[in-house]
């Protein structure tokens, strides 16, 4: 089983993701340059955080037209796993692989802090090692994480259990105060209809070792490995 971490010009969480996968978890992992079109041999991809193309025009808008993205569409079609973290989530939205769009944080500030997240769906290939309704602590760092979609799209996401992570208080309540950026319905992460593409603003790769203040993020990657190993997801 092999992970690929896509490197766009301006990605800056690529090394973090690579480090967690290879050094902390011990998975086979390689960088994938954004000009590459060859994703053969990979079972899962990470679109990392950062500022691809300097966030010019809109976050993720230019990365979406990188050569590698044509292959990412095929990769997703084949049912392989893709996780987009922060800027990676923005790229997935711009690419239309997930619905909706990001607006600037309603507070007009870049937010860099720890947040509480509720794991709303534990039957995805990215969350199968969490307990239903578990509240975890994960850091965020973004200026544009104010998730927006039309009300009917939000309703459909709710109905289908596609809201995977929500900003909550310490007791698991999605309050206004717990929402760091104004995201619709406190949405921090969503999954596609097929269930193999996850996008989230918080950074699980920054909290996968106790040395960095928390380990709650590690199970995202371990869940992916488990679902790939058991074929639980691919067999669907």
């Amino acid at each position, binding site marked *: 089983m092999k992970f690929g971490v896509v490197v766009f010009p301006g990605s800056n969480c690529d090394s973090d993701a690579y480090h967690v996968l290879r050094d902390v978890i011990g998975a086979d992992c390689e960088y994938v340059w954004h000009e590459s079109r060859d994703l053969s041999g990979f079972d899962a991809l990470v679109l990392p955080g950062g500022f691809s193309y300097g966030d010019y*025009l*809109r976050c993720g*808008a230019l990365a979406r*037209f990188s050569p590698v993205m044509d292959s990412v569409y095929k990769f997703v079609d084949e049912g392989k796993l893709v996780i987009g973290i922060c800027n990676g989530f923005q790229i997935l*939205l*711009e690419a239309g692989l997930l619905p*909706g*769009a990001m*607006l*600037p*944080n*309603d*507070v*007009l500030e870049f937010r860099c802090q720890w947040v509480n997240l509720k794991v709303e769906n534990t039957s995805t290939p990215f969350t199968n090692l969490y307990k239903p309704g578990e509240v975890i602590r994960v850091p965020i760092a973004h200026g544009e994480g104010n998730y*927006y*979609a*039309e009300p009917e799209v939000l309703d459909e996401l709710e109905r289908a259990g596609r809201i995977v992570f929500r900003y909550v208080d310490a007791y698991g309540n999605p309050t206004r105060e717990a929402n760091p950026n104004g995201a619709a319905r406190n949405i921090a992460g969503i999954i596609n209809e097929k269930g193999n593409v996850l996008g989230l603003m918080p950074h699980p790769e920054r909290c996968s070792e106790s040395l960095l203040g928390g380990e709650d993020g590690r199970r995202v990657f371990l869940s992916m490995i488990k679902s790939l190993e058991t074929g639980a997801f691919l067999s669907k």
Partner: protein
Amino acid sequence: MKFKGTVTVWLKESIFDPQGAAVKGSLAAMGFKEVENVRIGKNIVITLEAESPEAAKDLLDSMARKLLANPVTESYRVYVEEEKAGAQR
């Protein structure tokens, strides 16, 4: 023929624009009580070669739909004018 196209992109009216709201607040504090609404957007200016103004507009419209604006959150408008000879830098 050479044209200068301007694509103006701004947040849809139905979406709260925090930058516009902040500027509106400052204008009000300065005494501009007449201000009812402020929206902040961006202008993308593109010089291009096309057969006619209509063809230039079609091209710019296609660019706006595919890249310059995000249809989920943004509206856009396209203006085209002929680039005057000698006006190019």
